[in-house]
């Protein structure tokens, strides 16, 4: 969607690729405030008389904007515009003149390749595609596009020597931990994105150059997009996630690190579109999330002491139980993949879609 209304350039049914411009608009420019009364040495109420243009008219940079004459016209002061744009304000009270920069054109790309299924007049379009989809838990960096390339097994920590010139333009995947050094090396080699299990907060701070306070991301000026699938710290990438991305190796993917936890949750994503001819008959699967939890549901534990462990819901006792922290909460028992059965709060697991 465009940030403000504009013109949609595609039609329903059009085939688009990730870089097709689907809509365009012009964002109003910034306003420059000029204390013209002070520059010209006149009273604010005199301003409308000495300014040669009216509110709403345009002015070019360097164009004569105001003239004052004094002593029977013998002395004359001129003011040439330091900015080009539209005159928004000529104030006879404060003596200020406001010039708004000329509008800036904004193009909206399709982001993923597919078919336009719906046009939203003046705003944008819905692009539909058959795709593999991985949702991460946290990311930084905006929309990017590249070929998927596996660089490490899920439990392996990524190291700078894993990245070389062959990674340029690629979206690297795999591993349990990415460090700031790896991210910087990848950035330098022209890598488009990294999708991995975990990152330490200290490394994120080092990479971004500032400490993150609230989880609203996607606008960072980083050279690549980084998507974390599991959480903070060293986290082995979930087997299913790894295998799905591995099966997409060599394919073109669209990724976006934008994350927003509050007020309309947004999680980072990896979208790997397929051509219709590559996909057999489309079969709608049951939505595991909509089903809720029941014995047998695959879950991942998302808090200590079993953070990152994956297993199957064993029982869902109705009565409250006391945790080590002494809180009384609703719990579940989970049979972990390593055979242990553990008790965890229901709030501390997430359902895994497989």
């Amino acid at each position: 969607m465009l940030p403000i209304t504009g013109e949609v350039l595609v039609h329903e049914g059009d085939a688009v690729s990730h870089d097709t411009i689907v809509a365009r608009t012009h964002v109003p420019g910034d306003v420059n405030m000029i204390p013209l009364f002070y520059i010209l040495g006149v009273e604010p109420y005199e301003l409308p008389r000495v300014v040669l243009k009216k509110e709403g008219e345009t002015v070019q940079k360097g164009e004569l904007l105001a003239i004052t004459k004094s002593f029977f016209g013998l002395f004359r002061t001129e003011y040439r515009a330091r900015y080009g744009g539209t005159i928004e304000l000529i104030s006879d009270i404060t003596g200020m003149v406001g010039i708004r920069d000329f509008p800036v054109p904004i193009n909206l790309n399709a982001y993923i390749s597919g078919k336009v299924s719906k046009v939203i007049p003046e705003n944008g379009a819905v692009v539909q595609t058959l795709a593999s989809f991985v949702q991460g838990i946290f990311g930084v960096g905006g929309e990017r596009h590249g070929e998927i390339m596996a660089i490490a097994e899920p439990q392996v920590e990524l190291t700078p020597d894993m990245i070389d010139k062959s990674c340029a333009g690629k979206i690297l995947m795999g591993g349990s931990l990415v460090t700031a050094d790896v991210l910087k090396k990848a950035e330098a080699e022209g890598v488009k994105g990294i999708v991995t299990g975990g990152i330490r907060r200290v490394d994120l701070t080092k990479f971004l150059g500032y400490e993150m306070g609230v989880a609203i991301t996607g606008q960072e000026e980083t050279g690549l997009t980084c998507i974390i699938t599991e959480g903070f710290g060293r986290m082995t990438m979930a087997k299913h996630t790894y295998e799905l991305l591995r099966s997409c190796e060599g394919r073109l993917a669209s990724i976006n690190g934008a994350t927003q936890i509050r007020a309309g949750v947004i999680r980072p994503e990896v979208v790997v579109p397929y051509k219709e001819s590559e996909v057999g008959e489309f079969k709608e699967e049951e939505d595991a999330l909509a089903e809720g939890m029941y014995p047998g549901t695959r879950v991942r534990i998302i808090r200590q002491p079993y953070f990152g462990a994956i297993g199957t819901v064993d029982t869902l006792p109705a009565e409250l139980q006391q945790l080590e922290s002494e809180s009384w909460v609703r719990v579940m028992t989970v049979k972990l993949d390593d055979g242990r059965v553990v008790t965890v709060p229901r709030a501390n697991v997430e359902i895994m879609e497989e």
Partner: protein
Amino acid sequence: MKPEEMRIMLATDCGSTTTKARLFRKIRDEYRFVCTGEAPTTVEAPYEDVTMGVRNAVREVEELSGVKLLAEKGIMVRDNPEGDGVDLYATTSSAGGGLQMMVFGVTKSITGESAERAALGGGAIVMDVVSTDDGVPLYKKVERTRQLRPDMVLMAGGTDGGAIPPVIQAAEILRIAEPKARFGAAYSLPVIFAGNIEARKHVETTFKGMFALRIIDNLRPSVELENTDPSRDAIQQLFMEHVMSHAPGYDKLMTWTEVPIMPTPMGEGMMFQTIARLRGINVIGVGLGGATTNVYSVFDGKFVRTVSANLGMSYSICNVLREAGMQNIIRWTPFDIDEGTLGDILTDKMIRPTTIPQTIEELIVEHAVAREALRMGLAHHKFLARGLRGVRPPETLDDVFERKAMGTESYINMLRISLIGGTGGLLSHAPRRVQSMIILMDGFQPEGITRLVQDSVFMMPHLGVLSTVHPEAALEVFEKDCLVRLGTCIAPRGIPEKEEEDVMKVEMTMPDGSLRTESLKIGNIIRVPLDVGETAQVVITPNKECDVGEGPGQKVQTSVQGGVAGVILDARGRPLRTPTDRAEMKKLLLKWFRAVDMYPGETLERFEKVVS
């Protein structure tokens, strides 16, 4: 129906994450809280209709209470005392980020500050304060104003009869920035002008009908006077007329109730004001939420609310870390934890805000963050809770020499605060009530004799909105079911000159007539059991450097109330002394935790073995 005829009442609060329904009923001759129902809030996509969450929460109440509450459309309000439904339905809301405002003033420390106080008092989150003298380049002010999408703007500026141009300059910034309202660009942004009365027509001319302009009395008619009530009323009215009516589903919700929808913090604040008014005392209250920390104070009758928009226990937990600094959080943990691990734990909490601590270590980490959020929230509050700036006091000879600047320091004197109240998930869900008490004490550092209370199941906003229709019922429920009496804290201000001297000596005559005497040296804390409803007579003799309310070294004789955590004699120092040496601090923390029985003994033993 007249309030006195009402027997069953329902209130909801549509929070950012959860919608909470509370049912109240007259049982025999008293109003009591009956039960609670909660459901996810449905303001955001894909639902975009707040009433769905309200219905889900109310359905839970219906199931638990057996009372039929839901009509086909809305809440069933009965017309006869025997019928189904309720006699009153009211709601508060902070969904979608609550009421978000920008404020404009001319002088940052005078009209800018007054406008901020007025907006906060009206239940808003203040996104930014723009003033003509704040030193920010004009183009930056315009840029910032354009980027933000407030629900409403409050513009103050100039005393009545003062200079007009600076006021108009602020109006011009607003005009050319032309900020768009948050909920869609289809309606005009409400702008309240509460500035110089002589600038009114110029402001109207400047705006050229661009905004939904409301002109009200100047909130700073003279430098010596601040008049925030008309602004607060206008905010509440415009919140209903413009903001709520455009938020997803609120047009429907507004038809379900005859009581105006109130911003959640306003409801919360009303109850803290009620306690202060009824008991004639000075009060500090806090709402420690996931995203924000709201602090309320009523001091000598003056009410101030502040919101620290990015200090919270889940969504904003990393901001607490960033603002407080790693070491300030680590200092509250009695075990070894490195900065990297702590950072990862808290960032994981931020990205998965609904998870809860399972281990004692993680619980202690969250309690550590809470103390820092409270400490910084109160510091922010004190910054705004101060005398009017710009006022020149009548000068005495001392003032001439000392050049005392009135209004630069907070008027909140912790020695004169009689009660501290807390609400919010972390406090309500603390496994032991004494944990809430100590967290509040460490965060706020009460001085003298202070009672501590907390909201039992988060119903203060509900009671606040209910009190606008039926104050007696709201008050009765508040006293009987909402307030959990944690206990009383006795903590002298000051530190003795010599370590070996006592901070205070306390003689307590217990309810059974027995006498208990305690002498405390610096760094010590004692918990004396005294149940809810029980009272003990105390004689406190502080050190000559220490003050419990009557002056340094002055004895105080009074009665103190008990609570679920009893009476806590706190000689840890005011200001609280926390050693910078990590090993020393860990030992001290373990001693304090032991003394008040804050965490399970076997866990503390585990930590103690490591420390020794």
